[in-house]
């Protein structure tokens, strides 16, 4: 297994799951989020992908009970859409989202158990990550979670460490290059290498 120090450093980055865009609690009316976009990176599908990789993870972390699905298609002409499923406020208040006690074994298209009353669909093609997030927050009235002082401190520490490690790596890169050059020069002097090879 990988060295424990290395693994713990990697775990520190889980902070990214708690702090940042998308750290918000959705109201109980929201029953499901769904994204449609294309697998390939270009032609305006970069923003949706970045949203999925960053902000949607945070949303899922703070709203573990809300199903969030992504379907990516192969055809580059397909649209990129975000669908939000809502239920009525009274239904949301009376029944907390019921979930099965055992996992459905054949769940290719997971259906939301709460009846959906209305859906909001908006285009996310050729839009930046934060634009998508802004619209989502506005439509759902999600409550944003501000990072605590402790978390901010941790972020500062991590940033400082990252800077230091960048410095260290630049320094050692320089040092290693110098050593390599010296070794090569010695080899040429001894006649083991020609200067062209």
């Amino acid at each position, binding site marked *: 297994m990988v060295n*424990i120090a290395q693994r713990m450093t990697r775990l520190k980055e889980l902070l990214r799951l708690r702090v940042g865009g998308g750290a918000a609690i959705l109201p109980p009316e929201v029953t499901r989020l769904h994204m449609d976009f294309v697998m390939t990176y270009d032609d305006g599908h970069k923003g949706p992908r970045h949203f999925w990789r960053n902000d949607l993870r945070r949303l899922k972390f703070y709203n573990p009970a809300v199903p969030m699905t992504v379907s990516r298609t192969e055809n580059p002409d397909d649209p990129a859409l975000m669908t939000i499923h809502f239920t009525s406020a009274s239904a949301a208040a009376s029944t907390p989202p019921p979930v099965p006690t055992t*996992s459905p074994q054949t769940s290719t298209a997971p259906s939301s158990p709460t009846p959906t009353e209305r859906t909001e669909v908006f285009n996310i093609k050729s839009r930046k990550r934060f634009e998508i997030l802004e619209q989502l927050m506005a439509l759902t009235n999600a409550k944003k979670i501000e990072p605590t002082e402790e978390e901010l401190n941790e972020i500062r520490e991590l940033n400082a460490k990252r800077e230091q490690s960048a410095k260290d790596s630049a320094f050692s890169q320089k040092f290693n290059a110098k050593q390599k050059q010296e070794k090569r020069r010695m080899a040429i002097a001894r006649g083991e290498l020609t200067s062209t090879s």
Partner: protein
Amino acid sequence: MATPKPCMAQLSRACLQLTRSTPTALPIRLFSTSTPNASRGKFVPKTVSKKEKPVVQSTNKYIKKTVVKKKKARTTYKQYDLSQEETFPLLDAMRIIRAWEVGQKPTSVKYELALKLKSQKNGPVVRNRLRLPHPVKTDFNVCVICPPDSKYAEAARAAGAVLVGEDDVFDAVKAGKIEFDRCLCQTDSLVKMNKSGVGRVLGPRGMMPSSKLGTVVVDPVKTMKDMVGATEYRERMGVIRMAIGQLGFTPEEMSSNLKAFIEAVKKDLSRISDKVNKELVEVVLSSTNGPGLPLNGAFKGTNTSVTPKELSGP
């Protein structure tokens, strides 16, 4: 006439003088030691150069000896100090992994478990087969090689084998049409199979039946039933890794799977350890794309804010 005696004496004197005048050692210093060495005789110790002389180590106790010992190769896998390790209860770990794997297909993404052992590099390894309470993968397509008109063929078809037969199986395999994940062989058709040359196709995929792996059997149907849901695990580099669940599993299902697996491994360890001492050191839960989270054995922690119900949906 003079006697010949003085004459001889004179002669010998003359010879002696001659030898005296020419010194035995040449005044020029030779670079090679082989000629002087040979001239010194057979049993005289050779003169050796400074380089070849054995270094006499000083016996002065105040001078530190700088003898570089050759480092011994490590016989056990490296262990780390786990006291500073951050551990998670199962619910928290599942919440993080589910958030990380958001939007992935719940059937394709798997939870994985790594069990770190304290073990030696050589010696026996843990290797066994286990049927989890909630199997991770159940839909195997099985191919059975047996005589097509035997009772085994009928039974295998009834049990849900995709492909049954001898020659048609070999033809399909050689044509590159492999629509199964496991292959079983009945003992009667073993010779025929070995002659047919399907090993060249199936071997690299790890599907070639062999008695060593327990896939050449008398009753294929019985093995088929055993195989469904059973997974193999083995220790590699002091770690046992196995897929322990699908992403859609509920925390209760996961916890029962984890318990079953860890208990099975502990049983294996106790069976082995009469000669070597093996211990379970660390349990890490991970997933196909997710981070590795060390577990602390608890289902729910003091700071856990999620309920198992919230983690059950898709």
